[in-house]
Every structure is written in structure tokens, then in C-alpha cells.
């Protein structure tokens, strides 16, 4: 879908009355521009010329019968403005808008913390957001709340009325970032990392050049403009590759392709590739370990909040992967590299505020996958795990405080010794016909955290919190694909037997285990005969399922097993790394109580 050339013609015959009526009916400038075949800018100009500008009314619980003290406002097209501008220095924080998969409560957390921090600095805080479920839209949270859409038009209107010192766009996820550049072009000061810096991190070519300049490794990548070209590019990069459209319409997912045919297939069914909307191809680092880092920079110094290690291997969206802080399997050299690269990147991108970096490590080499110079999904998790209020620190830095002034120069994230595990929570129980395997497209709606002094206990708690309590006895069904028939899988199977579980598997996996000396019973696949694995799940004869995806051929089986597991609330694990982690959790759970401790107690331990 190409956008036609924007015209700048002026619909001069439109009367001020009609324009006002359109606004009273809720038409946006964007709609009017489309209807009249002109640009949003022209419509805005026309409105202002005719004095058709919004006023702000107060939500006062009493239809103006009594005087209201709490500034909670909405715009409308009438005459009297009830929102009085103060003389204080003010900062507007743009919220995250409606929750969606990939942009949830984490960003509201960051916005609210931003408000708290600026309040401490004596700045008048204002929030713009349109999500009624959130703390940020509680009129108590900020000095002023504008319950308004987060579009350029609505935000600019408020900025023109309030004349803020600046606007924070990096706490509310993608939503405010989308309009950051346009706000800046309209004379609004963007606090923190400049839109230019954000852009640099998002532009593949420019960012790639920067990484090469900084001598930081990254997976090979390319851009394809046609189906044939895509295969060629993929071959140059070498397989496997991660393919995704540059222009996402209707959520066409990214996919991992292992050969040219798969790329061709993907291009055919998933994408309308064209010179305007190319397809992005990256080398996929199979079996790599992934890490996330959240940090704050003031442009001079960088404070690392924490390094997280993903439990699932590369290829699973970071939002869907469980992760652990501090990392549990990393060499000192790699950790130092991760920190070094993070600091280099923060400085090169002139980051002022939060930054998140995703890394992959394969064969001892650390690669940078992605940099986001803004609040990330993991900021609240890191803050809870370490007690370091990253979003608050970032907000203060954005209004001019230095990390040194905040007493954070030299902060060492390594002093946190207890272990925090984050686990994602999925809505599969609501969608009966949807496959339950994880992939590069994020599908989780929420997350839980498990904390303990011990890795296994933290894992067990995270699983329990996610509604996936691990069993301590019974039978485990194992089904792994060809490439997973490895020593690693055998280790998991042996550990489970050692913990007192019995194993069953369908033919392929069973013979693999038996040949390696691991005792394992046989069970039919769904179509092979009865009783089959689904019967066993339904009868409560299986307590844990470890099933790595086998591809198209056994989709029916996996689907049936996945659904029956969900319906019968049997733990279902789809990656080997998660299975290995679960084994540790089970072992800890068998020892008895997992123990409880308050966050305040954990934090006291860090400081003493």
C-alpha cells in the first residue's frame, strides 16, 4: 500500500463553522486532510487561522457544581478553557497508549517512575495517555493529567497550550517514539536521547556502519527487493537466516529459514516485496545464547543496571523467553565484552537516559543484535531484581542531572547476588486453535518473577507464578526432533530419571534414549494406535511434556498434544534449554519448601 503524494492545496471554501462542526464531531486533522486531499499541516494551519482550537475541560465529578482542585483534563471544541497554565517548569511524559502484545504495563511503570523522579526534582509533571487501566492515568499520579490520544495533533495541541520545558518520548514504548521527530520539527524540545540518535539505532545501514566503526561484531545482514534477490542475499549471508518484512502490515511475522526454498516460500506467501518495501534478512545465530542489558547514560558516564541471560536459545522473541539475572552461564571475558560494547554504544549514540542492548554469544564471540535507546520491557524487572530504579534515574538525567551527582558513578551491578528469573505468560488457553510453540514473533501478554538465593528455586517459583507448577514425581513424555538427539538431551533425560521420574516417548526418541542406555517406555503417536500420548495426558498419566517442534510433518500430533496439555494443565516445555532449567527447578522443589523473602529483605542484603 503506497502513500500517494501529499498535496498542499488549501480547501479555501470551507467555512469556519463547518470546520468547527467537523472538530465537534471528532474528526482528526488527518481525516480532514484525507477527505480534502491536502496535508495535515494545511488543515492545522487552517484551523488555527480560523481560531478553531481545542479547549481543555476538567473531569471534576460534579459537572462544575463545585470547584475542582484536581487537574484532570480532556480536550473538546468549545469556548472556555478550564486548564490554567502555571508558571512552573514543566515536563510532559507521553504514555504508552492501549496495552497490546509487545507493549504492556512495563512502559506504564517507566512513565510513572519518570513522573515520581521529576516530582522529586521540583518539576511540574504532566502525563498524556489514553489507557484507562493504568496507574499513569490516575489523576493522583501527576500534577496534571491529559486524557488524550497520543497522536501528533493532540500532543501538539497540549504542547502549544502548556509550553513545556520539554517532552519525554522514550518511556512509553513505540507509541510516543513514532511522533518524536514530528514533534521536534514543530519546535517541541525532546528530552533525553535525540530523535536523531534513536533513528541512528533503528536504521540498519547507518547502525551497521557505526558498529563496524566501533569494531563491534554483528550478524551479517542484507536487504532484498525481490523474491529472487532474497534468495541470493540469503545465500551470501549464509543459512540459516531470519527473514522479516521492513514494512509490517497485518502483522506478517518473521521467520527463520534454513534454505533457499524456505526463503522463496516465505516471500511468496507472506510478503508483497517491492523496492519501497524491501525484506530484511539477517544471519540467524543458531543455538546462540542471548543476553539483554539495560543501562542509563548521561552522555558521559554509563551505569549498567543489569545483564540478563535468556533461558531459551536464540530464535525466540526476547519478550517470550524466560531470563535470569545475573547471567548464569557466561565467561568473564564475554561479560566484559558485553559491558564494554554497551558503554561504547551508549556514548556513540549520545544516549541520555535509558538504553537496552540485545546480544548473542556463539562460539565465544559476542554479537550485538539490536540497540534501543529508550525504555525497554525489562526495565521494571531489572529494577525489582536490583533495587536500582532505572527509570527514575533516567528521568533525572534527562532533565540535566549527571550520574555523578546522583551518586551512581561506579555503581556495580555485580553486587546483586540473589537470583531473579522472569517467565513469560501466554494466552493460549483463550485461543484453542493456535499452535503453542514459541518463535521470533512475540505472543506473551505478561510476565512473572521468581526470586531466590538459588537458581533452581527461582526457576520453580517463576514457573509456579506463571501457572505452570513443575511436577515433583510421575511420568515425563519426551519428543525431540532429529537435531536435538544430542548428549544435552540425554543429560536432561538422565537427570529426570535420577529425580525419580519415569519416561515415555514415541518411537524415534524412545530408541534414541534406549540405545544410549536411558530407560524409556513407548507410547503411540496420535495416529498410530490407542492408547496414544493424548489419551495418557487426558488420563493424568503424564505430568510433564518436553516436546521440541518437529516441523510440518508432525504438526497434527504436536497440536493435539499441546492442546491436551493445556486443557489438563500439564507443564509443556518446547525448548531443551527450558527443559534443562526446569530440571533444576524440579530438583529444588523436591527438597521441600522454596522459601519466601520480601523484596525489602533482599535489597537490604545487597547493601550490607
Amino acid at each position: 500500500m503506497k502513500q500517494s503524494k501529499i498535496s498542499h492545496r488549501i480547501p479555501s471554501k470551507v467555512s469556519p463553522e463547518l470546520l468547527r462542526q467537523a472538530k465537534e464531531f471528532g474528526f482528526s486533522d488527518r481525516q480532514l486532510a484525507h477527505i480534502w486531499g491536502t496535508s495535515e499541516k494545511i488543515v492545522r494551519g487552517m484551523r488555527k487561522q480560523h481560531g478553531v482550537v481545542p479547549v481543555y475541560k476538567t473531569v471534576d465529578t460534579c459537572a462544575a457544581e463545585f470547584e475542582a482542585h484536581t487537574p484532570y483534563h480532556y480536550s473538546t471544541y468549545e469556548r472556555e478553557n478550564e486548564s490554567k497554565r502555571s508558571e512552573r517548569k514543566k515536563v510532559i511524559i507521553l504514555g504508552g497508549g492501549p496495552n497490546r502484545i509487545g507493549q504492556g504495563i512495563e512502559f506504564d511503570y517507566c512513565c510513572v517512575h519518570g513522573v515520581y523522579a521529576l516530582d522529586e526534582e521540583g518539576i511540574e509533571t504532566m502525563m498524556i495517555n489514553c489507557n484507562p487501566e493504568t496507574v499513569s492515568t490516575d489523576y493522583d499520579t501527576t500534577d496534571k493529567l491529559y486524557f488524550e490520544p497520543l497522536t501528533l495533533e493532540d500532543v501538539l495541541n497540549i504542547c502549544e497550550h502548556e509550553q513545556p520545558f520539554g517532552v519525554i518520548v522514550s518511556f512509553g514504548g513505540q507509541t510516543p517514539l513514532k511522533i518524536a521527530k514530528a514533534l521536534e520539527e514543530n519546535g517541541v524540545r525532546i528530552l533525553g536521547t535525540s530523535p536523531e540518535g534513536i533513528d541512528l539505532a533503528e536504521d540498519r545501514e547507518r547502525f551497521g556502519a557505526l558498529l563496524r566503526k566501533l569494531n563491534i561484531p554483528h550478524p551479517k545482514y542484507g536487504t532484498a527487493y525481490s523474491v529472487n534477490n532474497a534468495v541470493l542475499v540469503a545465500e551470501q549471508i549464509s543459512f540459516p537466516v531470519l527473514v522479516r518484512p521492513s514494512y509490517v502490515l497485518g502483522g506478517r511475522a518473521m521467520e527463520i529459514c534454513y534454505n533457499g526454498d524456505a526463503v522463496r516460500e516465505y516471500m511468496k506467501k507472506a510478503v508483497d516485496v517491492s523496492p519501497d518495501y524491501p525484506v530484511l534478512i539477517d544471519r540467524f545465530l543458531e543455538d546462540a545464547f542471548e543476553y539483554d542489558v539495560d543501562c542509563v547514560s548521561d552522555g558521559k558516564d554509563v551505569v549498567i543496571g543489569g545483564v540478563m541471560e535468556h533461558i531459551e536459545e536464540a530464535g525466540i522473541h526476547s519478550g517470550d523467553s524466560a531470563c535470569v539475572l545475573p547471567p548464569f552461564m557466561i565467561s568473564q571475558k564475554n561479560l566484559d565484552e558485553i559491558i564494554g560494547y554497551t558503554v561504547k554504544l551508549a556514548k556513540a549514540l549520545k544516549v541520555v537516559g535509558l538504553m537496552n542492548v540485545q546480544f548473542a554469544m556463539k562460539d565465544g564471540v559476542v554479537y550485538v543484535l539490536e540497540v534501543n535507546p529508550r525504555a525497554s520491557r525489562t526495565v521494571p524487572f531489572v529494577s525489582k531484581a536490583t533495587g536500582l530504579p532505572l527509570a527514575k534515574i533516567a528521568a533525572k538525567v534527562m532533565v540535566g542531572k549527571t550520574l555523578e551527582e546522583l551518586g551512581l558513578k561506579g555503581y556495580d551491578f555485580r553486587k546483586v547476588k540473589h537470583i531473579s528469573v522472569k517467565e513469560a505468560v501466554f494466552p493460549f488457553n483463550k485461543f484453542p486453535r493456535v499452535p503453542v510453540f514459541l518463535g521470533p514473533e512475540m505472543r506473551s501478554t505478561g510476565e512473572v518473577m521468581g526470586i531466590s538465593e538459588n537458581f533452581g528455586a527461582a526457576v520453580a517459583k517463576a514457573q509456579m507464578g506463571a501457572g505452570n507448577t513443575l511436577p515433583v514425581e510421575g511420568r515425563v513424555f519426551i519428543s525431540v526432533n532429529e537435531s536435538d538427539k544430542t548428549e544435552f538431551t540425554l543429560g536432561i533425560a538422565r537427570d529426570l530419571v535420577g529425580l525419580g521420574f519415569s519416561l515415555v516417548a514415541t518411537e524415534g526418541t524412545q530408541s534414541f534414549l534406549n540405545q544410549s542406555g536411558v530407560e524409556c517406555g513407548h507410547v503411540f503417536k496420535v495416529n498410530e494406535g490407542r492408547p496414544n500420548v493424548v489419551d495418557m495426558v487426558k488420563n493424568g498419566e503424564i505430568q510433564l511434556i518436553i516436546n521440541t517442534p518437529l516441523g510440518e510433518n508432525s504438526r497434527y500430533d504436536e497440536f493435539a498434544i499441546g492442546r491436551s496439555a493445556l486443557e489438563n494443565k500439564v507443564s509443556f516445555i518446547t525448548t531443551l534449554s527450558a527443559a534443562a532449567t526446569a530440571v533444576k527447578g524440579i530438583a529444588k522443589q523436591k527438597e521441600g519448601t522454596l522459601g519466601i523473602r520480601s523484596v525489602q529483605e533482599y535489597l537490604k542484603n545487597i547493601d550490607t
Partner: protein
Amino acid sequence: MPKRTDIKSILIIGSGPIVIGQACEFDYSGTQACQVLREEGYRIILINSNPATIMTDPELADATYIEPITPEMVEEIIKKERPDVILPTMGGQTALNIAVALAERGVLAKYGVELIGAKLEAIKKAEDRELFKEAMDRIGLHSARGGFVNTLDEAVKMTEEVGFPIIIRPSFTLGGTGGGTAYNIEEFREKVLHGLTSSPIQQVLIEESVIGWKEFELEVMRDLKDNVVIICSIENFDPMGVHTGDSITVAPAQTLTDKEYQAMRDAAKKIIREIGVETGGSNIQFAVNPSDGRMIVIEMNPRVSRSSALASKATGFPIAKIAAKLAVGYTLDEIPNDITKLTPASFEPTIDYCVVKIPRWDFEKFKGVDDTLGVQMKSVGEAMAIGRTFKESFQKALRSLEQGRFGLGADGKDELDVRAMNDVERKEWRRRVLDRLKIPKPGNIFYLRYAFQLGCSIEELFKVTKIDPWFLHNIWQIVELEEELYSYRV
């Protein structure tokens, strides 16, 4: 009544991870409860497994447990912290279910912990649909025909009495998980079986379908002196059959006559008293038959709910905060309204504007998903907008959703360009659009615009969608104005 001085510490249970049907509204309510009760000088103990929440910030409680919300874990916390009371009404269904489990296991008795906000009996009366039905009968209010079953056989027997279409609702599930509507016996069997597996107690409610009826909600609060206030009325734009969480909702209610509204208010007061929610907020849902005005009670949530968050934001009345204060003994007349400072919380809010909430779905992330909207909630978020009229708020809410839309179409993103169609195409599309509107789906709202552009009448669209003619009329007005605006195109 002043606040209770016999209690020193309060355990608040959060709602855990964000899932469909239980989102960050409970962070909002839990955060408010922590703040206000701490200000009152109580020691606050909190459990919530969700680290992304504000309420789990270490500053908000005296002891914050980021631990799994299971009865066992909560018992350990009780054992260690020895709270005097538990406030289970801020953490959605999760918290209520835990409270019930703790009571039934004898944990509360063992440690001498009291439930505040809602007593066990009230929770059970509101949540157990059988007890709820009996309660409604006692106070002379109607509820839908049907009953509870534990097996498929019992369910099949009941179909005769109830008649198709039939609604199947599993007991004790979140956001109606595992529920559905059946139009024939085959579908009925399948859905009952699914419902029985989804329900933790293997029970489903088989109920007369009130699909197409108008749906309303009232947010009600009550204190220990038996004062009752109605905070807000909410009307569902989408008729019965679409879960409230998946429905466009409007506050205040727009299409009730004063007589109908008063009858609903009276019913709400009777219900909260009969169920016995002594302190705090409840949400009560009603259905009204558009053809004869018959009103029935659908259900009641004896706790702060998604709708309470919406009602709080829509009116400025902080329901969770007031509910927390009521739970520790204050009465409505003793609590000042934060906004006016002059009026007490016993003044019912008045609103001179219109609020519209529109859900947001993310179906494109789930290959093979059925995107039909029904009694099981499927949306992942929502946007709300405030304006002087329904039309203004409605278009603002549409552009708040951030799905690339800037109002009711006319934004360059329309799937159909009716203006470019010839007569033959128009005739064909008129049929197709009407067909599509028969089944509730995301995006239908834009199809209402196409329908009007294609010359459909309000009556015709009401017949197909059962959306109240008042709403349809408003949408028609938007489409009409768009036509006029279009004539000025340069």
C-alpha cells in the same frame, strides 16, 4: 464510623501476571489501596508475582513479596508476617479465588486472619451462580433461565427447558475462558465439554441466550452504615453476546429512559444489600430486552473490576481508594472527595461529557485464531476517550487505539472505497457488508460506515447488529458530515 484501630497490618493480594481478562487495572487498584492504607498508618504486606507493576515497588508496602500467588505461598507469608486482615478485593479474580481457598483450607481460622472488603459468604453468593440466582429470586429480580450442570448428560437434558441458542459459561474462570454460545446440539456438546474442562470445579452454567439484548453495568459502593452510592452507569455499544471486555462501552448510559435507569439503580441497591457486600465496590451487569424492556440481572463482581478502573477514570471518583478506606471502617460520608475537597464521597458523581472505551485485539499474532467475538474475552488492551458528545469521544477513541486509524475511516486506511464503486459493485458490496456485520468481529465498526455509505438504513442495521438505533444514528451523522466535508475536496 472512624477507621478500625483493632487492626495493625493488612495483607493485600495482587492479581499476578497480565493475561487476557486481567490486565493492569489491578495494578492501578492495588497501588491505590497500598498508598491510601499506608497513609492511614497500617502496615502493608503485599504479594504479587508480577514485577512490571507499580504496586510491587519496594516503597509502596512495608513487606513486598514477589512470589507465586498460590494458597501455599500466601499461607507461608501469613505465617511469617501474621497480618490481622486480608484485603482480597483489589487483585481481581485471582485474589478472590485465593481468599476463598485460604478460608476453605482453614488457614484464615488457624492464624486468626479476617477478610475485609468482602466476606467469604458474600464472595460465594456473588460468584456461585446458583446461590446468586436464588438470591435474585428472593429479592424479586429476574435472571436468565437455566442452571448448573456437572456432566454432559445433565446439560443435554436442560436444553429442552432453555431452548437454543444457549450460552455456556464455565464456573470460576477468568474472562469467561472456555465459554461460548451454541446454536445446535452438536456445537452444544462440544462447548459444554470444553467448558467443563476449563472450570476448576468442572461445572458449567447453561443459560437462556439473551443475545442481542442491551447490556448495562452499574458501579456501586456500599459502606458499613448501609449507605449505597451509584458511581457510574456504563452502556455497552455491542449488545449481549459480546463480552464486556470486547465491547465498545460508553459512560454514562445513553439510551435508557429515566424510568428504566431508576429501576436499574433500585435493583443495584437491592442486589448489593442482598449479596451482603458490606464495604467497597461492586460491579453489576444487567441486560434489557429492546423489544419489551424486560430487565434481567446478569452477574455481579464483589470486587474492584476492569469496569471499576474505567468508571474511576470516567468520573474522577477513585473507586479503589475509597473501597480500601471503606474496608477499614470509614463510611462514605466521612471520606472527602479528592477533587472537590468540599463534597464527601457519598455524593454521586455527575458527568457532563461522554466517555467511550474501545478494546484492542492482537489477533494477527496468532495464526489460525478465530477472531469472532463472543462471551469469552479476547482483547488485550483498550483505549478510552473523553469528549462532549458521543460522536467526538467515539472518533477520539478510535484514533487512540494506535492501529493506524485516525477516526471512523476517511483516513486513507479504508478497506473499501465506496465512492469509487459503480452501481453493480455497490449492490454486491451492500450484501457482503450486511453479511459481515451479522457476526461480531474486530473492525466491524468501520463496516458500519461502509453500510451507511452504501445506503443501508438505521433500521436495517439494527436488525442485523442489534446495536441500539441511537448509536447507529450517531454513526450515521458522522458519515453524513463526512459526505458534506467531501464536497469541499480540492
